[in-house]
């Protein structure tokens, strides 16, 4: 057991799988000699060689396209896309090829590619280093989508993602790479060593995809969230002293509907929080599903707290980010509705 931040935990997951399985290889921009702009692959080229940790041309579509071919030939590629904002040139290969290869070939061909990519705002990255495009992936059939909220989960989920024969898009909320950010940008940064999620086994372990975690049990309302917003929600709940059940989805696809259902049927109130834009964000599916599954138990409209429907503006990062105040306002709405 070590204290790790999320970068170290991701590095440890990559190390553990590469150690265990010689077919695992890494491909991405600056991932090799340099170890990645966020240092997630630091030291891995030195350890596993430049034939397993490969610096790639700046061509996201080429990285994903060639990773598919690499995967078809029996290796297990982990592709890094430097920022989720830059994954779009690779979307055609993801949508048209990676997601559908198994289906269209009736199970005969597949490619077990994992795509890791940092997402989310809060690092003064402006509109091109802050996006959370998960909803573009969750609509696709044939791709799994994951977003951890702690180093512990990041390692265990990433190992499962790499080992999965299904393709996985693995979003890393970069604002919590170094600490469990609660949404208050005025407070000094808190390191992961202060958080139980920063306790990470050094050795191999995995967390199954498709299982949400109940971060905190409660019975007044259910908060469904993932990534950075898990911590924001916790802080908001703490401040308000409301007895909320906070669910960290961890996997968006497959979605753990049972856990959501059990919780909302119990609490009768539901708030959904994510950083991505609200309109057609993943929260839309969550709200639609929850009202389908729990309608007769709902005592108030399901509330969504999310990024505004604008690009992520550099100067107004904290006004864009759905911070504690917005979560609290949302909670009040849900709690007071009658």
């Amino acid at each position, binding site marked *: 057991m070590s204290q790790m931040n999320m970068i170290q935990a991701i590095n440890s997951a990559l190390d553990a799988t590469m150690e265990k399985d010689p077919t695992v*290889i890494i491909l991405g921009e600056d991932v090799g000699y340099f170890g990645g702009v966020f240092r997630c692959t630091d030291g891995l080229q030195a350890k596993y060689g430049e*034939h*397993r940790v490969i610096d*790639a*041309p700046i*061509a996201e*579509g*080429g990285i994903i*396209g*060639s*990773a*598919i*071919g*690499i*995967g*078809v*030939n*029996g*290796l297990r*590629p982990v592709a890094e896309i430097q920022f989720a904002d830059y994954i779009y*040139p690779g979307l*055609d*290969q993801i949508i*048209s*090829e990676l997601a559908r*290869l*198994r*289906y*269209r*070939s*009736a*199970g*005969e*061909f*597949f490619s077990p590619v994992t795509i890791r990519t940092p997402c989310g705002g809060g690092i003064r990255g402006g509109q091109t280093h802050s996006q959370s495009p998960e909803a573009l992936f969750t609509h696709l*059939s*044939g791709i*799994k989508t994951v977003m951890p909220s702690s180093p512990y989960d990041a390692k265990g989920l990433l190992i499962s993602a790499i080992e*999965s*024969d*299904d393709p996985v898009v693995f979003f890393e909320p970069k604002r919590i790479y170094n600490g469990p950010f609660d949404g208050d940008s005025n407070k000094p940064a808190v390191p992961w060593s202060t958080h139980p999620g920063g306790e990470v086994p050094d050795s191999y372990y995995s967390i199954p995809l*498709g299982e949400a975690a109940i971060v905190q049990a409660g019975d007044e309302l259910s908060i469904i969230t993932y990534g950075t917003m898990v911590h924001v929600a916790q802080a908001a709940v703490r401040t308000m002293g409301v007895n909320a059940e906070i669910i960290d989805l961890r996997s968006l696809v*497959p*979605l753990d*509907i*049972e856990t959501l259902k059990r919780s909302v049927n119990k609490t009768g109130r539901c708030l959904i929080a994510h950083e991505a834009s609200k309109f057609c964000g993943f929260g839309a599916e969550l709200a639609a599903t929850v009202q389908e599954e729990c309608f007769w138990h709902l005592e108030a409209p399901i509330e969504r707290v999310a990024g505004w429907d604008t690009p992520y503006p550099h100067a107004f990062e904290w006004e864009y980010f759905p911070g504690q105040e917005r979560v609290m306002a949302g909670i009040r709405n849900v709690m007071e509705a009658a």
Partner: protein
Amino acid sequence: MASKSRLHIPRPSARPGEVPDFSYLALSEPGAVARPACDTPASKIEHLAHEMVRVLDDDGVAQGEWQPGLSPEQLQDALRLMLLTRQFDDRMHRMQRQGKISFYMQSLGEEAISIGQGMALKSGDMLFPSYRNQGLFIQRGTQLVDLMSQCLSNTRDMCKGRQMPVMYHNKAGNLFSISGNLATQYPHAVGWAMASAIKGEDHIAAAWVGDGSTSEADFHYALTFAAVYHAPVILNVINNQWAISTFQGIAGGERRAFAARGLGLGIPGIRVDGNDLLAVHAVTQWAAQRAREGDGPTLIEHVTYRGGPHSTSDDPSRYRPKDEWQAFPLGDPVKRLKQHLINIGHWSDEQHAALDAEQKEIVIAAWKEAISFGTMTDGPRLDVAEMFDDVYVETPPSLIRQRQQLLALKGVKS
């Protein structure tokens, strides 16, 4: 505004009603292009991208250094496979016209490419075909009934009804799943070849796209990655002069040959008479040897002509002269190989007619068998429940529920 426009708009040499004109097609004399050693550095052989490797001359005589040294039996076999491909295409095209299948795409006029290349590659080499490479499947021994069953989406369909006709694959035969999206297979082939090199194996990969498809991003990605990692891959461009209704100039072929597209990355390009099975075989062997021996990727441009419509949904008489194919200077690959075999004393018109008739019979028999597994309208049908399989390794609860919904609905009906 448009009247003063100075934008250059490429135009084909002839439109419907005009006289076909292939003067734009730079041809070399058969036998004229020298064959460099396989390990010649790319920078020394840039001329190969602009000339044209040709072996068979207009009389069917093989000329020059690129003669592949195939035996008469091998050539007869190639001819048989080309005839079989053509008969297969012909029948399937007509079955579509009769409403038996939903769609079809012929390779009429391009048969020498798939057959010649298939023969030049090893069975362990992985092929990433386009939708006009049925010859590769046939050359590798895929059962016609399997290809037909795919087109029929019947109970024997290798794709379980999930793809449109002609989107075959053959896992055991190392033939990758064909995609409806143009050029996406190109980076797959490069990645596959990279993995082969990483594993220290000496299998190579090969991929095919049409002239029109070279404009897609995946073409660029594939060339870039192949060049950077010196991947053991053969990248083929089948320049059949047309991409649906647009001629090859719209894909940038007006000023430079497609074979030259990789030169700026250090990828040697070689332009070949795509209707000359011997030339196609020879350049493929040459490129394969380069790849296998660590000399990296090669881009081959096959100059040919799309003899038929783009697909059964297309009517080429709307955009090109009806008789354009007849005027194509590189002729018909089947006739040219036939003439060569006759020339070298190993073939006759009678043998040819008999062989062709035999292929036709084989195709008819296969079709009979294929429809016994069901057609779009009659016979056994795939189990609709399977529609929810293979989206993921394990079908998730949400899809199991959707399957139940569908089955319940069908139950209610019946």
